[in-house]
């Protein structure tokens, strides 16, 4: 079988085996099929250069490979590039389509048919289609597409046996248009592979470059013809017997409309707070971090290390000291970070599979557009409250470099991670209303002001929201767990070396006396500008090691309520933890990362000082606090007005993938 060789994944293939690839749009139940078709032993492999993992499993002689959910294959984003490479290398594609959304799903189906790879279509969720009054003529669909079509209800395991036996009868289907057929024949003469020929015609720069051919200019024509073909097929095979609005559709609309959507969002956030903020961050972490890691693991490791090296020696300190690679890093990653990341990813996977996430993106789009982002950026911002390092990695989903720049800087500057939030909430809790209001208002206003200014002054255009709003569904929990596991594992695998490197850097700074020097350097600003005791500088620097260390360091100082708020504002804005700094250096270029790093230190002291001085204008502290709050709110309202008066704002629009 002549398939294309573009894959960059190293998967061992048995000599006579076939590559059976699962493909489909997002949320069509693909992973359920993967579980059904494969056995217990599933391998997960990271796709080079991306955060995306591909599951694959050997079944007899064959290899079954999963792909990310996509609406089409091209070079638009990482998911599509991977799906493209895996599908072009397939011997057989099992394409899963949602019977309720044939119009959308069959576009990918027809595109894969046009690549010339033999295919079987699994017409999934026929039960849901039926209950919505949608009837699909399977026989006619099979005839029109030219590939076998099997009706399935994956979650009820219906149609699976038939699908398995049909895989052997996979067929190359009917090309979407006669013009395309001719063009494919001509291009195929040059590149020897129909799939690659198709993508070159569709202007895919990567595949074209591989063959040293100029990318084609026919994408629009091919796409329009394919869309026409798909609409024609759907028009023939689908009959709608009722047109009504059910409860799920209504609920879906409520989630988007602000007047109902915001209360729903607040309810969801409250649930997240109960689940993560209370249960995971307190109950679970107390067991994992305090009891298991600090109580059992660390003494054990220190004992082990001390058998070979003196703990007081520099090597002993690097390995098993206060910030040791074997002590602090392991405790932090496994005891604290892992439970939190798992907690956040369970919610996120649930939202993703239920269809809430795209609705949330639509709801928040208007607000995020003010700071040069679109609704999709709500995902890294929610994750940022879990772990800023994680959120920084996740900004890869954003459409443009400009958006990533804005999001990463705002995350580093003004989003306190869960570790820090815990300590901050504890310290603020006892202070009373005005002090809490001051902290929350100032941080929020800084986020808005800095975001607005970045959007105003950064060159380039941000992308606009253009996403599919899938139907609401109750997620399959096993799938949510699996997703959570895969994503958490992938993140921890990527982040652990960074945390270890960070720990090494900090230990070295401590051993060489650099840490003390930095603290002394910051002391004058701390005392003169922020009116805080000299020791607060130590807490700020410790915040680089771990953000919660910094905040916790403040609890040891005896500060009056106002000084506590000033120091908490400063430490929130002050640089994120060392792992987050390293991940910024990894994700951005050195110059930009350095600007972000120094920028956030500068702003921390700038805004901390402004709060201190503004409030200090009044002899009555509480009056001063309300004055400061008003000043910050005023500045937030005026910032967008000012940037509009001085310059005319260019309209923005660029590519965005749903």
């Amino acid at each position, binding site marked *: 079988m002549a398939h294309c060789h573009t894959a960059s994944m190293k998967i061992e293939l048995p000599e006579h085996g076939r590559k059976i690839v699962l493909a489909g749009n997002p949320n069509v139940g693909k992973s359920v099929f993967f579980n059904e078709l494969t056995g217990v032993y599933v391998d997960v492999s990271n796709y080079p250069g991306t955060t995306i993992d591909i599951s694959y499993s050997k079944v007899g002689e064959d290899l079954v490979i999963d792909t990310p959910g996509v*609406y*089409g294959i*091209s070079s*638009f984003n990482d998911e599509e590039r991977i799906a493209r490479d895996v599908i072009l290398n397939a011997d057989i594609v099992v394409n899963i389509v949602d019977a*309720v*959304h044939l*119009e*959308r799903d069959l*576009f*990918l189906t027809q595109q894969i048919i046009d690549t010339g790879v033999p295919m079987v279509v699994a017409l999934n969720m026929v039960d849901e289609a039926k209950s*919505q009054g*949608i009837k699909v003529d399977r026989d006619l669909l099979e005839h029109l597409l030219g590939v076998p079509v099997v009706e399935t209800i994956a979650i009820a395991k219906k149609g699976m046996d038939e699908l398995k036996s049909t895989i052997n009868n996979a067929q190359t289907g009917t090309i979407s248009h006669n013009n395309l057929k001719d063009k494919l024949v001509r291009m195929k003469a040059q590149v020897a592979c129909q799939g690659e020929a198709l993508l070159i015609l569709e202007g895919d720069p990567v595949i074209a470059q591989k063959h040293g051919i100029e990318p084609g200019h026919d*994408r*629009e024509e091919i*796409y*329009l013809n*394919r*869309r026409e073909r*798909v*609409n024609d097929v759907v028009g023939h095979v689908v009959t*709608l017997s009722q047109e009504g609005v059910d409860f799920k559709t209504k609920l879906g*609309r409520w989630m*988007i*409309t*602000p007047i109902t959507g915001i209360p729903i969002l607040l309810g969801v956030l409250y649930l997240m707070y109960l689940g993560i903020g209370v249960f995971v961050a307190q109950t679970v972490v107390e067991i994992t971090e305090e009891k298991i890691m600090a109580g059992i693991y660390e003494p054990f490791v220190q004992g082990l290390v001390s058998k070979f090296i003196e703990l007081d020696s520099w090597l002993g300190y690097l390995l098993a000291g206060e910030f040791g690679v074997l002590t602090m890093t392991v405790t932090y990653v496994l005891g604290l970070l892992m439970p939190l990341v798992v907690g956040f990813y369970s919610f996120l996977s649930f939202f993703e599979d239920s269809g809430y996430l*795209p609705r949330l*993106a*639509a*709801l928040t*789009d*208007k607000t995020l*557009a003010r700071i040069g982002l*679109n*609704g999709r950026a709500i995902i890294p911002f929610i994750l940022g409250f879990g772990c800023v390092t994680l959120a920084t990695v996740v900004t890869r989903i954003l459409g443009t470099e400009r958006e990533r720049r804005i999001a990463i800087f705002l995350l580093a500057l003004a989003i306190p991670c869960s570790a820090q939030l815990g300590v901050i909430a504890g310290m603020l809790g006892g202070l009373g209303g005005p002090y809490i209001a001051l902290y929350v208002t100032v941080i929020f206003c800084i986020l808005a002001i800095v975001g607005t200014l970045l959007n105003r002054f950064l060159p380039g255009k941000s992308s*606009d*929201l*253009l*996403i*599919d*709003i899938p*139907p609401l569904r109750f997620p399959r929990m096993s799938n949510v767990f699996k997703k959570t596991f895969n994503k958490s594992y992938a993140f921890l695998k990527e982040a652990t070396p960074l945390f270890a490197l960070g720990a090494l850097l900090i230990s070295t700074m401590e051993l060489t006396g650099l840490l003390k020097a930095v603290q002394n350097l910051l002391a004058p600003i701390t005392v003169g500008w922020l009116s805080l005791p000299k020791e607060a500088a130590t807490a700020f620097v410790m915040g680089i090691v771990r953000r919660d260390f910094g905040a916790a360091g403040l609890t040891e100082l005896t500060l009056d309520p106002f000084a506590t708020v000033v120091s908490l504002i400063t430490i929130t804005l002050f640089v994120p933890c060392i792992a987050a700094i390293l991940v910024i250096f990894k994700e951005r270029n050195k110059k930009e990362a350095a600007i972000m790093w120094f920028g956030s230190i500068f702003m921390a002291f700038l805004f901390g000082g402004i709060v201190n001085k503004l409030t200090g204008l009044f002899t009555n502290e509480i009056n001063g606090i309300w004055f400061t709050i008003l000043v910050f709110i005023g500045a937030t309202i005026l910032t967008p007005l000012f940037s509009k008066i001085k310059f005319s704002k260019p*309209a*923005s*629009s*660029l*590519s*965005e*993938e*749903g």
Partner: protein
Amino acid sequence: MYLSEAKKGETIKILSIPNEIIRAQAIRFGISEGSIVTCDSLIPSGPVILRKNKQEIAIGYGLAREIVVEGI
């Protein structure tokens, strides 16, 4: 008129979509120049939700201001 000026519940015909990549993505979702769609809901100065049969897509305000449509 532009899509951003459409009203809730209005049925409209898409006349032109700017930017080649946006057009390609819209075609995948089933919406191309000439498509007849319903404006399902909209947030003032925010995204517009378009529906065509069972397919719904959200389009940001900035983009909606560049898509030319006509009421039907």
